[in-house]
């Protein structure tokens, strides 16, 4: 069974159709990149999958659970990092992570493991507003990993990161996918940032997942041939 199955999904905001009849699926342990220019519908898609907004049409299944009917069950299976972080910056990192632990009724011991795994123990008792973008992202990843999600969604996580931080992030994502079997859906404007870690690349434009031909054009325009190879499944 696919971890994420999207069927004929559509969403219109105002007069604009942001998501237009999208269908795709993600399997366990897969890292899928969703690439597209600004305003193509990437963030809206994340919001639909996490049910921050409701679709006009279509179906979203998380490990077989329809998110519209079984939202709470589906939410135990996914974790998401939004474009603008959703942390409470006037509280400490520990307060943030502990809050999510309590909501999800997760054992206290798990926090220690996650803090250690993400390497955030040094600043966990500091207020979040003191954190750098990378520290915030690591904390958010830790919060996501508390649930051992089946699907991890990241909306342009590398926006404010330095090159070495992006490299670390990719290592973490590959490790999560490989060792925990978590499927990862990662949004990016540029293919170059994610091409090395993705098993599959999807190209979104004007709210539609484009066919192979259009995708080829995009990659050529963006001069990322290795991404194209990845997209085609070539080595």
């Amino acid at each position, binding site marked *: 069974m696919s971890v994420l199955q999207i069927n004929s999904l559509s969403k219109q905001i105002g007069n604009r159709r942001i998501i237009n009849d999208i269908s795709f699926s993600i399997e366990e342990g897969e890292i899928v990149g969703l690439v597209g220019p600004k305003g193509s519908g990437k963030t809206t898609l994340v919001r639909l999958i996490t049910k*921050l907004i409701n679709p006009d049409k279509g179906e979203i299944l998380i490990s077989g659970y329809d998110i519209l009917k079984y939202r709470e069950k589906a939410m135990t299976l996914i974790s998401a990092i939004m474009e603008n972080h959703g942390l409470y910056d006037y509280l400490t990192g520990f307060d943030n992570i502990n*809050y999510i632990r309590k909501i999800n009724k997760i054992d206290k011991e798990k926090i220690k493991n996650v803090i250690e795994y993400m390497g955030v123990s040094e600043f966990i008792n500091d207020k979040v507003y003191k954190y750098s973008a990378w520290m915030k992202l690591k904390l958010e990843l830790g919060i996501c990993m508390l649930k051992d999600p089946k699907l991890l969604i990241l909306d342009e996580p590398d926006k404010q990161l330095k090159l070495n931080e992006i490299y670390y992030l990719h290592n973490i994502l590959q490790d999560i996918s490989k060792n925990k079997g978590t499927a990862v859906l990662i949004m990016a404007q540029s293919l170059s940032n994610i091409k090395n870690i993705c098993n599959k690349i999807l190209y979104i434009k004007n709210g539609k997942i484009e066919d192979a031909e259009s995708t080829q054009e995009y990659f050529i325009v963006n001069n990322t041939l290795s991404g194209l190879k990845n997209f085609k499944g070539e080595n």
Partner: protein
Amino acid sequence: MSALILFEIKKFFAKKKNIIGIILFLIVNIFYIICCFRNENIINNMKLQACYHEIEMQKNTLNQAKADFDTASKNNNIKLMESISKSIKSIEQKIALSEQRKNALEQNDWRLLLETEIQSDKIRLEGIKNGTIISELEPKDLKYKIEKNQYLLEKNIKPSNELVSTNALYFVKNFFNDIVPIILIVFILYFSADIVSCETDNERVKLLITQPVSRNKIIISKIISCFIVCLLIIGIIFGIEFLCLGFLSGFGSSNYPVYFDTKNFSILNSSGSNIKIINIMTFNVLLLLLFLLLLITVISIGVLLSTVFGKSRKAILFSTGGFLVFYYMCEKINLFKYIAEYNPITYFNIPKILDGTTASFYKNFNITALNGIIILIFITIISIVLSIELFKKKDFI
């Protein structure tokens, strides 16, 4: 749910904005208490000054009456002499009472003061009935006053300056009369109108929405936590004030008499109020219970506005500003006097509802505590249901 509530409380006290609000509320309270102390002293002095002035006026009137009597006796006008003689006796009686009142005030002898007041009120009541005295007080109000003073005397309770009393038990009543209807409501709205909007404002709500928690639970936990927080703040500040005043000015007698309109909890319709005297302890318990309901109602309205507006500043401005404008229209301009019994703001001043002042003011005897409870519960339910439904359908873009 408990995790959500506890975290909401933690968040509340971690926000600078809220701490500033609490400090402001504390400052307003301290200022109010200082004013009460100051006014209490002023009123005590004024009472004595008024007494001196009254004696002087009465003595002048007596001299004038005596002069008139001499003129009448020179003219051998026996009828006029009899009439003036009666007036002289009455004035002398009043002077004696005023002198007694002055002595009581100077010696701080409250028992003598009460006796004097009862006597003079009885004379006044008699005079109103005979048509010889015009008074700003209605006979029934004078009767209530006499009854109350007699009760104080019988139970050996020292009277206090009721409007500005710093006596702890009476302060409760005054606090709910002066601070609660406007200032406290504004602060509660300030806190509650921020509770949903502050999260949607800066997208923090997304972290919560993407957790396995229903949106109903999120709203309900926010209402409960806001209720607990407000209760905690008011309880602590008010509790400290109560204890401080108790030690400074005394706690007062729990048997202190206050007026209570028995129609408040009666389901039978009648054309007027039915005032009786109850002790201040019972009155304050009723007051606090009704306040809990008022608190839930105001928080529910605040949370609803917070859900509707989404933006923190807008929600706070609209709820506090809107309330002040609406309060002014209701209480000062009396714009909604014909539907006062259905207007929740009518019930914000709980002491005035309980003692029947509001009902008398609007000349609407359907304004009772029972009616207030129904109106406030109705508004609370509507606000909570609307908040939940709006939040459930809200798109967090």
